[in-house]
């Protein structure tokens, strides 16, 4: 194809997206569109998969059967989300094995929030409330993104997320209505998860690259700062209902803006965790890679069994 032809195709392509048409896997697409989508969808899938680890940590120690079945169902949903997203990503011509390889080798990133430890039961509450809450705000606009398989996966994901957030908030609520020690535990979890949750929306708009391109392709509809503000504005009243204090002395309602002003985010910490120096980066990868390696004989055995069954069937048919 000549440069002229490619330019033509690219213009038609951008026009289709601008008209709100969806792009499907076999359609022609610019290489950059393909690569950007592989990167974003796979990062998202990896986040769902690694995101199971901090919560998996508490399944066996959930304080009641009710909490245990709920947490188990939530973690199972996250596995499902990872699988929907991996299969959406594979339609772009990358194999599941390559995707896993990128995660396991550290080449691919996942959401940094999962590199923080879950030290008490209240962390299950704080994660559902804040982390799933922030994820919902990030994810809802993606239900209308331009790449069909991604948009369809996100519709399913978003439907399931609201249970996650509600179960987390209910955990916080119960702790806050309990003994002083329980309420203290809830406050401590909020103290530890608040700032990392704000970082989930990514660098400030001034620092953030490729926002414009992402807006065009509908990978983004609002900027990082807008989404972060939305999260803060809707979460502060929820903390008030719990009777908990947001750990930010600069947090103040701004009448004029109709929004909360808030303190400086520690971006040094953010970049440190992104670069692999968070409290749990090594631990998470070790658990993930370990599970994959220990499962190898099971995957091989299943394949060998399937082949044997197939052979047997073919022999009988003769």
């Amino acid at each position: 194809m000549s440069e002229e032809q490619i330019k033509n195709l690219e213009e038609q392509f951008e026009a289709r997206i601008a008209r709100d048409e969806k792009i499907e896997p076999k359609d022609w697409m610019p290489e950059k569109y393909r690569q950007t989508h592989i990167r974003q969808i796979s990062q998202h899938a990896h986040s769902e998969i690694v995101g199971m680890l901090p919560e998996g940590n508490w399944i066996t120690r959930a304080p009641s059967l009710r909490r245990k079945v709920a947490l188990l169902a939530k973690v199972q949903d996250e596995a499902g989300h990872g699988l929907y997203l991996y299969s959406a990503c594979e339609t772009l011509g990358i194999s599941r094995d390559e995707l896993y390889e990128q995660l396991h080798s550290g080449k691919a990133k996942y959401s940094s929030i999962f590199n923080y430890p879950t030290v008490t039961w209240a962390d299950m509450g704080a994660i559902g409330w804040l982390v799933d809450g922030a994820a919902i705000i990030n994810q809802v606009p993606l239900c209308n993104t331009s790449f069909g398989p991604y948009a369809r996966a996100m519709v399913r994901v978003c439907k399931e997320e609201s249970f996650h957030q509600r179960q987390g908030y209910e955990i916080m609520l119960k702790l806050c209505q309990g003994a002083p020690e329980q309420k203290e535990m809830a406050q401590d979890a909020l103290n530890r998860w608040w700032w990392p949750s704000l970082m989930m929306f990514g660098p400030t708009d001034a620092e953030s690259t490729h926002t414009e391109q992402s807006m065009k392709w509908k990978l983004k509809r609002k900027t990082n700062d807008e989404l972060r503000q939305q999260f803060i504005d809707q979460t502060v009243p929820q903390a008030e209902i719990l009777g908990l204090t947001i750990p930010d002395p600069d947090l103040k309602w701004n009448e004029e803006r109709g929004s909360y002003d808030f303190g400086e985010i520690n971006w040094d910490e953010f970049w440190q965790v992104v670069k692999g120096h968070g409290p749990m980066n090594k631990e998470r990868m070790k658990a993930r890679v370990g599970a994959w390696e220990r499962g190898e004989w099971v995957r091989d055995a299943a394949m060998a069994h399937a082949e044997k069954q197939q052979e047997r069937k073919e022999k009988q048919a003769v």
Partner: protein
Amino acid sequence: MSTKNWPLWEVFVRSKNGLEHRHFGSLHAADAEMALENARDVYTRRNEGVSIWVVESKYITASNPEHNGEMFEPAQDKVYRHPTFYDLPDEVKHM
């Protein structure tokens, strides 16, 4: 490294009787039986289905969007296949 990877399967789910099976997504499984079990866990955790079909993705033959012209355009100028093509007086009822 595993010797062989589990193949890819496409999953179709009937949400309730009276509706057709609809494509829900795909997954990896060693064989058809496992594909069905995995499809149940991945795509029907909340009663989304009453029946599941799985088919190995390699058996699906798909049309190529680059040939959409020859494939689908011929139908575009066949307006006479639509009821509105036929001019009838307003007095004619039930037609």
